[in-house]
């Protein structure tokens, strides 16, 4: 299938991009790597009259170290993270997760900002960055605001961004040197969308022990205070059920096992 016709703009600055977004209203879509939007356009699932390509904006490719955290521009690609070509505040978790996103060809173009804003329930960054306690910075004509990643996704393909806003960067806190992380996802084949996904962070120095259950039917389940769960893995089955994550016996099983295998990675 081929896309409906659309106009294409490639602004050079964030200000220009915001102006174009404001003009076009609901009729525009922001284009970064195009790895999710491309197929949706081709399958005629979306029909924007205008695409605003933000990959030409230098600010969105920046990476800065602000002491406690690394701030990634929205257009940083999964491949750059996978390859370790850029700083990693997470002791290996981000490159590990990046390496498992889809296929390398997709990773060469797909962006961390795009993945968050697209808000596919199976997106690796939605789950992982929620576990790490990352925040995004969002800019509109009225100014900037920050949103915690675990509050960003409202439901499938829906975030708390309002019309005219652009996600510009992601602030990822540096994990302590003795922090432990776990990540497990179950895919039927390498590179495909996960059927179950769990991320775990144990960082007592920063007072952070979190479990995030992703690849649900909608937003991930965030267990912000997961110390009990991690110390009592037998309660995993109950957690899955109580959060309405067991569509059927198979679903319950693969989610239980994924969560257990992620928790296993942080156990001594």
């Amino acid at each position, binding site marked *: *299938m*081929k*896309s*409906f*016709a659309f106009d294409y703009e490639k602004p050079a600055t964030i200000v220009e991009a915001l102006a174009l977004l404001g003009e076009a209203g609901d009729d525009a879509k922001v284009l970064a790597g195009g790895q999710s939007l491309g*197929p949706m356009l081709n*399958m*005629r699932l979306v029909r924007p009259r205008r695409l605003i390509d933000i990959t030409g904006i230098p600010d969105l490719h920046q990476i800065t170290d602000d002491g406690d955290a690394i701030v990634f521009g929205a257009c940083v690609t999964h491949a750059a993270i996978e390859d370790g070509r850029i700083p990693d505040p997470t002791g290996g978790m981000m490159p590990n997760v990046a390496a498992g996103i889809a296929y390398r060809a997709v990773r060469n173009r797909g962006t961390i900002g795009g993945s968050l804003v697209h808000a596919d329930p199976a997106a690796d960054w939605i789950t992982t960055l929620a576990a790490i306690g990352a925040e995004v910075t969002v800019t509109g004509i009225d100014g900037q605001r920050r949103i915690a990643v675990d509050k960003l996704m409202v439901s499938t393909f829906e975030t708390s961004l309002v019309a005219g806003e652009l996600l510009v960067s992601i602030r990822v806190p540096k994990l302590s040197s003795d922090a432990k992380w776990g990540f497990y996802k*179950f895919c*039927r*084949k*390498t*590179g*495909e*969308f996960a059927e179950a996904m769990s991320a775990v962070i144990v960082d007592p120095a920063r007072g952070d022990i979190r479990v995030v259950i992703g690849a649900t039917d909608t937003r991930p389940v965030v267990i912000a205070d997961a110390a009990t769960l991690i110390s009592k893995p037998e309660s995993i089955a109950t957690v899955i059920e109580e959060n309405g994550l067991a569509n059927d*016996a*198979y679903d319950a*099983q*693969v989610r239980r*096992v994924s969560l257990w295998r992620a928790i296993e990675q942080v156990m001594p």
Partner: protein
Amino acid sequence: METHSKTGKGIGARLTRKEDDRYMRGRGEFVADIRLAGMKDVAFLRSPLAHARLHGINVPERLRDRVFTHDDMTGVRAIRAVTGLPGFKVSEQPPLATGKVRHVGELVAMCLGETRAEAEDVAAEIDVQFEELPVIVNMLQGQRSDSPLVHEDWGDNIYLESSFDGDLTEAKAAAAVTVTKEFRTNRQCMAPLEGKGAVAYWDSRLEQLVVYTATQMPHIVRTGLAECLGLDQAKVRVIAPDVGGGFGYKGILTPEEICLGWLAMHCGHPVRWIEDCREHLTANANCREHHYHVTAYADARGKILGLEVEASVDAGAYSAYPFSACLEGAQVVSILPGPYVIPAYHCKTYSVATNKAPILPYRGVARTGVCFVMELIIDAIARAVEREPYEVRLENLVPASAMPYTNITGKDFDSGDYPKSLRRAVEEIHLTDIRARQADGEPDGRLIGIGFATFCEQAAHGTSVYSGWGIPMVPGHEQAVARMTPGGSLELRIGAHSHGQSMETTLAQVAHEVLGIDPAKVKLVHGDTEYTPYSTGTWGSRCAVMSGGAVATACEKIAERAASIAAYLMQVSTEEVRFENGEIVGPTSSMSLEEVAQIWYLKPQLLPPDIDSGGLEVTVGYKPKTDSGTFSYASHAVVVAVDPELGDVEILDYVIIEDGGTLINPMVVEGQVYGGAGQGIGTALYEEMPFDAAGQPLASTLADYLLPGPTEMPHFRVFHMETPSPNTKFGIKGIGEGGAIAPPAAIGNAINDALASLGVELCESPMSPRRILAAIAEAPPREGA
């Protein structure tokens, strides 16, 4: 025992492929690469419903000249693939739907645009009035007397019943062990890398409809187009350019080809349609869907005394041309016994009409399904008699000493040592080590299993077999044209088409074997009906035997004539010359093929007076000595690790011992085997098109329809045996499909072996994590568990 080419360029040589030079550089030319001035794109409006009456098609007035429906195509006939089999019911498939639609994706209207996107914009504006009808989505329910009908004038949904009525009384009485199982192989797509596509235009100089199409059988498509469009065949030219894989998907006359042919003549400009992935998946899920009830009777050693089978094949809504809807159903009956001695056999099969895309013969055809059944049954018997499954196979395989062997359904196995292939597989897979590893257990908790499958593959069967069927196309003599050029090169023309079979290389090797000519100086002309002799095309693993045999025969004739010219000029007898390295070598002198060609074409005054006037251009027809087909065979052995918590399966080792007779190019055969086995892994573990109760195909993109990729492929270890066929040139056998036949069986047996301790026995493919976990959950409680 392997044939080794003496020169490194003939039969048996691992010659690198000539076609790779353009393919590896991206210089192939496929249908989608063809650009003609004034060409417009077509998008089809396809039925969104599986079964519905078509009450009206509303097209906005301003688009009227860009939309075409059935009523516009006056004089165009429906696709009818009849057979001569008693009781066969004929279906009529109009190229564009009329009256009713019978499967999701059926063509309803054809839309023109400057680009495909524009054509889709046009299609989006059409409004169709459907009246939904009850949907037949389950072939077992479709057989019931109260089922709604796909074809109302039939009275039922059965294209054909096929049977083999043997008597099992003795077998039942003598059996020490009876095993009864129900099997299901699920529907899937073929997913060649290149989809279908066609470009059509009317050539007013030659007064001919020209259709470029991604097809395996240009001459059959030409015949079909001429019949449906009411044209003399001379007014139709079909050209298959480079084609990116067929596997049976392109061995058909398609409604799209007919529509484009008509449209090109109607509009007066070239038109094009290129299939996209969504069309392939949603409109063409058309293969592998079988169901079986099987009972096997065996003695205490596992020797099979009799087999009782009832099977159904979901053949979809129409009979495709030329193979018809009953190809697989009829095949099941005759090939289910596989490579085994089966003393008593009773089988009944139903080819059932449903509201799905018409069935096409996917690589391996019914063999993949029957191999799954036969091999899993053998393992079940082995468990019942408490013997190693390979030992039970050895109890039942046709032994080498019995060759040539006619089996219970009349299949003539030409040659081979089936038990040796299995023994070799057992050795190479290190069965004893695997059993020890299983006893030790795995540190990560996964369960190891090992599975075997042995099968034989009938190929290049001809007139005597197909005439009994009476399908629109019965293969006969295969023709080839061989022609030397004045420069000493050789042109070969065949009516089949090479789209992965490497014939540009292998047929050059055959020519080299006979004439000593460098394969680099041999050109294969194929794919164009204007330039090639009539052929039923490339299907059924027939080309190495048939086109190869025809090319060899044609080259032998050229050799006779070239020898007589050279011998005359060298003043020796023809017995004293031989062909070597592009030269004709006599006792004291030699001449190059080029010199001989020069004399024939440009200096006829030097020719021997009795030279055959046909000269250095010949057309020959060829058939093997017996045309009941060659039988290649193989044993597959697989080791898997099954994660009992997630149902995930990893293939740890995969051994294939194959015997394809004399191999023209072992590297090419290995490529065929790897590719086929890859597809077999898809069938075994990943590929499935599920349908909902309304007949909607649910895996509509590659996110849901899982194709195996490089990360799912094991490192196949392929070993060759070469038992020549007694009936063909050089002893060649067909082996194109074998790789795709055994994997679901071998992998199924391996999974069941891994899970035997949990009391699990899967009988349905693909063996997905969902099915594996369900089977584990449902397994009967074990003692001490």
